[in-house]
C-alpha cells in the first residue's frame, strides 16, 4: 500500500467537510462582507437537527437524507432571523459584525448546552454508509466518500444557482456594486436576506455531515469556525473555486501532517501554513483586481 494513499484520501474527505463549513461563509463573508462567528453554531444546529430528525424517522438509512434539507432550512431560517434582527444594521461595519456574532455564538452554545443532554446526542450513520472502498490496497471508509460527494453536490448547486438563476445574478450584481444594483431596481434587502439564508443553510448541511464524523454537542461548532474562515480567506474573497482548492489543500495538509507527525502538531502546522500563505498572498489564491483606494 502506498503511504501517500491514506493521507491523500482522508485529507480530501477532511477538506470536503472543511469546504462544507466554509461554503456558507464564502457567501456571507465573501459576497456580503459579514463576518459571522456564529457560523459554527449554525453548523451545530444542523447536527442537532439531524438528531431530532432521527427521533422522528427511526431508520437512519432514511433519516439522514431527510435531515439534509431540513437542516438546511432550519439553520437557514435561524440565519435569516439573525440577519433581520441584527446584521442588517451593520453592513457598513464588517468588523463589528464579527463581535456581535461572537455574542450570538456564546448564547447559542449555552442554549444548546441547556436544551440537549450535556454529554451530547448520538446521530446514527445510515447503514448504506457502512463499509469501505478498496483503493490502491487501502480500504477507505465509505462515509468519507459521502462527505466528498455531499460537498461536491453543494458546490455544484451553489455555483449553478449563482450563475444561472436570476436570483444568483442579482446577488452577484449586488456584491459588485450595491448602489448601482439598487438603482437598477434590485431589492438589495431581499438579496441580503436570501444570501444569508442560503449561507447559513449550508452550515446546517455541513452540520449533518459533521454529526456523522464527530460528536454532536454544544461545543462542536467552535472547532470549525477558525479553519473555515482561513479557508475562505486563503481561497480569495468571493471566489468559489478558490475556496474549493483552499479547503482541499488544507484538508490534505492536515491529514498528511497528522499522518507523518502528530495530531496536535498537524493542527499547528496547518494553521501556520495558512497564516504564512496569507502573509505572502494576502488577497488569497484568486482575486479580482480592482481599482480602488484600498
Amino acid at each position: 500500500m502506498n503511504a501517500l494513499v491514506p493521507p491523500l484520501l482522508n485529507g480530501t474527505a477532511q477538506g470536503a467537510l472543511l469546504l462544507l463549513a466554509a461554503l456558507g461563509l464564502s457567501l456571507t463573508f465573501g459576497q456580503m462582507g459579514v463576518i459571522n462567528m456564529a457560523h459554527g453554531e449554525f453548523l451545530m444546529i444542523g447536527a442537532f437537527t439531524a438528531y431530532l430528525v432521527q427521533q422522528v424517522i427511526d431508520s437512519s438509512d432514511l433519516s439522514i437524507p431527510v435531515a439534509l434539507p431540513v437542516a438546511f432550512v432550519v439553520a437557514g431560517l435561524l440565519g435569516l432571523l439573525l440577519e433581520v434582527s441584527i446584521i442588517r444594521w451593520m453592513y457598513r461595519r464588517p468588523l463589528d459584525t464579527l463581535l456581535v456574532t461572537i455574542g450570538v455564538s456564546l448564547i447559542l452554545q449555552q442554549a444548546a448546552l441547556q436544551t440537549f443532554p450535556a454529554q451530547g446526542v448520538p446521530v446514527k450513520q445510515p447503514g448504506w454508509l457502512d463499509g469501505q472502498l478498496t483503493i490502491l490496497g487501502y480500504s477507505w471508509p465509505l462515509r468519507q466518500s459521502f462527505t466528498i460527494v455531499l460537498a461536491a453536490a453543494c458546490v455544484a448547486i451553489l455555483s449553478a444557482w449563482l450563475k444561472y438563476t436570476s436570483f444568483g445574478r442579482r446577488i452577484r450584481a449586488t456584491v459588485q456594486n450595491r448602489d448601482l444594483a439598487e438603482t437598477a431596481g434590485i431589492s438589495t434587502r431581499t438579496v441580503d436576506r436570501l444570501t444569508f439564508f442560503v449561507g447559513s443553510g449550508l452550515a446546517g448541511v455541513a452540520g449533518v455531515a459533521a454529526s456523522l464524523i464527530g460528536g454532536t454537542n454544544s461545543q462542536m461548532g467552535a472547532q470549525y469556525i477558525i479553519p473555515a474562515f482561513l479557508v475562505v480567506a486563503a481561497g480569495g474573497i468571493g471566489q468559489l473555486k478558490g475556496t474549493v482548492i483552499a479547503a482541499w489543500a488544507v484538508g490534505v495538509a492536515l491529514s498528511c501532517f497528522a499522518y507523518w507527525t502528530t495530531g496536535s502538531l498537524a493542527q499547528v502546522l496547518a494553521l501556520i501554513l495558512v497564516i504564512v500563505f496569507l502573509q505572502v498572498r494576502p488577497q488569497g489564491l484568486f482575486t479580482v483586481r480592482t481599482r480602488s483606494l484600498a
Partner: protein
Amino acid sequence: MSTFSRRLRTLVATGTIVTVALALAGCGARAGDGTPGAESAAPSCVDTSGDTIKLGFLNSLTGGMAISEKTVSNVLHMAADEINAGGGILGKKIKYIQEDGATDWPTFAEKAEKLLTQDCVAAIFGGWTSSSRKAVKPVVEKHNGLFFYPVQYEGLESSPNIYYTGATTNQQIIPAMDFLASKGVKRLFLAGSDYVFPRTANAIIKLYAAKLGIQIVGEEYVPLDKDDWTTQVAKIVAAKPDFIFNTINGSSNVGFIKAYYDAGLTAATTPIISVSIAEEEAPAMGHEITGQYASWNYFESLKTDTNPKFIKSWKAYPNSSGVTSDPMEAAYISLYLYKALVEAAGSFDVDAVNAAAKKNTITFAAPEGTVTLDGENHHISKPGHIGRINANNQFDIVWSSDKFIAPDPFLKGYDWFPANVRDQLVKAAG
C-alpha cells in the same frame, strides 16, 4: 514648557505613591526566612456554632467541561440531600454553596479561594480536569482547606489538603493492563487525547507493557477539542494491533468510535478498552459499541449491597441523567467520606480531620463496595473491574481484581516503575 514640568511632577508623584506602597508591602517573608505554609495561613473562618455547616461544590456549569461536570454537581446535591435527610454531619445540616468553575482554571482557583475565605466553607468538592485540580491545589494548601476530587486521574500527586476519591493509575490503568495480559494481547495501540492524563497513563502503560511482554505498536494523540480521528485510525489499521487502549476524553471519543467502525474495525477483530467511556457516554457515541471494554471501579451493573439504593435514588432525583457511572459514584463517595472523616474526628477542623484520617481506619459502604481511606496518601482503596458493553449500553463485568486495590499514587509497589523517576516525582510533589 509648563505642561512638561507638570507632567514630570505627576510622574514623580505617581512614582512616589508606588514606591511608598511597595515599601509598606515589601516587608513580607523572603525565601529562606523560615518555612512558609500552613502556619502563615489565616485562622479558619469556618463557623461551626449553628446547626448548619457550609460546604462548597465547585464544578464547571458552563463552557466545554460542563458536558461532564454538571452530572457530578447534581450527584453532589443528591448526596447532600441524603445526608441532610439522615440528620446531617455531626448533627449539622449541610448548606452547600454551588460555584461555577466555568471550564476556566484560574476561575477554579478564584472560586476555591472565595469558598474558603469569603463563604468560609468547611470543605470543597468538585473539579474534573487535572488542570482544575492543579489550580485549586495551591489555594487549599495556602488556606489550609480541604478539597475532595472525584475523578480518576494520572496519580503521582498527593497533598495534605486534597482527598482523591477517583482511581489513581494503579486502580484503573494497571488492572486494565492485567486484563489485557490475561487475554493474551501481544500488540497494543495507544490512542489518547493530547493532555496530561493520557500522556501520563501511556507512559506508565509502556513501562508495564514491557514487563508484561506486550508490544506497543503505535501511539496517537489528538487535541481534546478535535473530533476527527480518521487519519489516526488509518494508522491504527496499518499497525494491526490486537487491542486498542483508549485514553481519549470527551466528545473526541465519538469521532474516534465513528472512524474506528468506518475503517472496518470491530470488537471481534480489534477491541477497544477505554478508561473514559462510562454508562453516560456510551449511548452518545452514535454507534453500537457492543463488545467493547472499559476499565472502571464502579459500573451500574455492579452487584453490591449498596448499589441498588444508589441507582434508585439517582433515577428518582430531579436532575438525573438516568444512568449511574464511575465519576458520579466517586463524587457520591466524596461527600460521605467527608462525613465519616468529620465524625471520626468529632470536628470540622482541617487538622483534626487529617489527624483522624491517619489515626482511624475510615471506611464507607460505597456503591462499589466498602472502600477504605489511606490516611497517608488520601486516596481510597477500590476494586478494579473490566466491563464489556452490552446492547443496552450497560456493562457486563468480565474481569475483576482479586481484592480491593490499595491506592498507590506513586506506584511504590511496582518494581517496573523506575525508582529514580519516582524519587524525583515524590520530591517535586513536596
